[in-house]
């Protein structure tokens, strides 16, 4: 198996000294004489215990570290057995939490099975060591686990550091006056004049426009379209008298609660619509 030729790590510090039992297992060439005692967790404590882990990778990392072996030398069989023991215990309790752990167990089992299967020499080079991917993930996770610890170690506002502040002097509210540029003023004038011009140019003599007729017309349009911008009500060809008449008509309809005026935002377009329940008032029927 690749990787087994690296130097054997020191024996687990968890192992009680002086006790010499026949080895029950060999991990990376070193004899393990006793099951690490920290691996057994009473089932009722497991739920709490697992919550201390940030996920299956975290647990796996813990198990690997507990064995005190180089992460690059994971004995997948050993680890899988330990891992499965955890899952076994967990299944009784929290299945939801178990899901991600089960996926990892499946990954471990797959790796284990692939290691057990004899492989032709030729395939060795092409196929990646089945453990490599797992090891990469573990290493990657470990990096960010450390990064999180480092982040937590940074001095932080309201923990090690406090914003220094002193009582400010008596506050006087200063509201500056709006600043207007001459160009703003000229633009406004140009706009006003342009709009005025629109009126002036169509100074055609028309029949006097009757607000009553306008009201009928407006209601008919609103009945058809329900919701119209106010601007659509004005007909520039009618000039100012027409606009005034339309405006009066809108006001009259609103006063009679036949039409509602809405504006969704300040300076936004103004819309008209038929009132929800038009009152049966004379002359309003389309």
């Amino acid at each position, binding site marked *: 198996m690749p990787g087994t030729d690296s130097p054997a790590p020191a024996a687990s510090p968890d192992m009680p000294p002086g006790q010499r039992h026949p080895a029950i297992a060999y991990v990376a060439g070193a004899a393990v004489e006793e099951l690490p005692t920290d691996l057994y967790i009473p089932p009722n404590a497991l739920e709490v215990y697992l919550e201390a882990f940030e996920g299956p990778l975290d647990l796996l990392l813990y198990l690997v570290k507990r064995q005190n072996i180089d992460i690059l030398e994971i004995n997948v069989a050993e680890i899988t057995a330990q891992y499965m023991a955890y899952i076994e215990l967990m299944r009784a309790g929290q299945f939801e939490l178990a899901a991600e752990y089960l996926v990892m167990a499946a990954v471990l089992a797959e790796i284990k099975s692939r290691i057990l299967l004899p492989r032709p020499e030729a395939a060795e080079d092409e196929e990646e060591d089945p453990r490599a991917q797992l090891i990469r993930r573990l290493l990657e996770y470990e990096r960010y686990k450390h990064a999180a610890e480092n982040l937590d170690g940074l001095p932080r506002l309201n923990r090690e550091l406090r914003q*220094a502040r*002193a*009582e400010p002097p008596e506050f006087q509210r200063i509201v500056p006056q709006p*600043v207007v540029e001459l160009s703003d*003023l*000229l633009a406004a*004038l140009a706009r*006003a004049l342009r709009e005025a*011009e629109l009126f002036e140019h169509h100074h055609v003599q028309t029949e006097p426009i009757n607000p009553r007729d306008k009201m009928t017309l407006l209601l008919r349009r609103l009945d058809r379209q329900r919701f119209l911008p106010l601007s659509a009500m004005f007909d520039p060809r009618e000039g100012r008298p027409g606009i005034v008449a339309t405006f009066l008509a809108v006001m009259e309809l609103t006063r009679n609660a036949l039409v509602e005026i809405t504006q969704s935002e300040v300076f936004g377009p103004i819309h008209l619509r038929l009132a929800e329940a038009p009152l049966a008032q004379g002359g309003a029927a389309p």
Partner: protein
Amino acid sequence: MSGQPLKTIIEALLLAADRALSLDEIRAVFDEEERPGRDELREALAGLGEDCGQRGVELKQVASGYRLQVRRELAHWVNRLWEEKPPRYTRALLETLALIAYRQPATRGDIEEVRGVAVSTAIIRTLLDREWIRVAGHRDTPGRPELFVTTRQFLDHFNLKSLAELPPLDEIGESGNGLAADRPDETIVELFAATAAEAEKETEAEVESPDGRANDA
């Protein structure tokens, strides 16, 4: 845990606390075995107060204890931190102002005729408050409407020496529109400049202009 001068610890406490701290509150943060006596503390506070000499803050004893506060002499700059953004004038206000500037003297009716909508009282109020326009008299027509003209403050704000410096109308807007390309009628302007100067002298007696400049265009 010690090794920090008492004065330094006190300074840190006062700058972190955001309120005045009493002697007892200060003493309470020390472990029992290093807790300073009240006299020792007062001495350290006096030392801190002296240190502040050239600094932006001063130590002040108020009813509830001691606090560090920004010196009053620095209020000018500090208050600027909270200065509000200048509000913006509405399009309607600017149009009204522009029409008064070019058509003065103008009544509300004159402005409404061009803009096609009523001129709100709020706009006229704002322009009067800002001292950009003033009432120069009343037109001799029914209702005797007020005649508005612009003021010297208006010219100052727009950095103009006189109304004659306003760009001629035909240069305004892309549509060299049909309205007579004119500057405000010079004779009327002069007429009003004369009465305006007088009126403004009166105004100055009442309302000190913000920058105190009193020169004539």
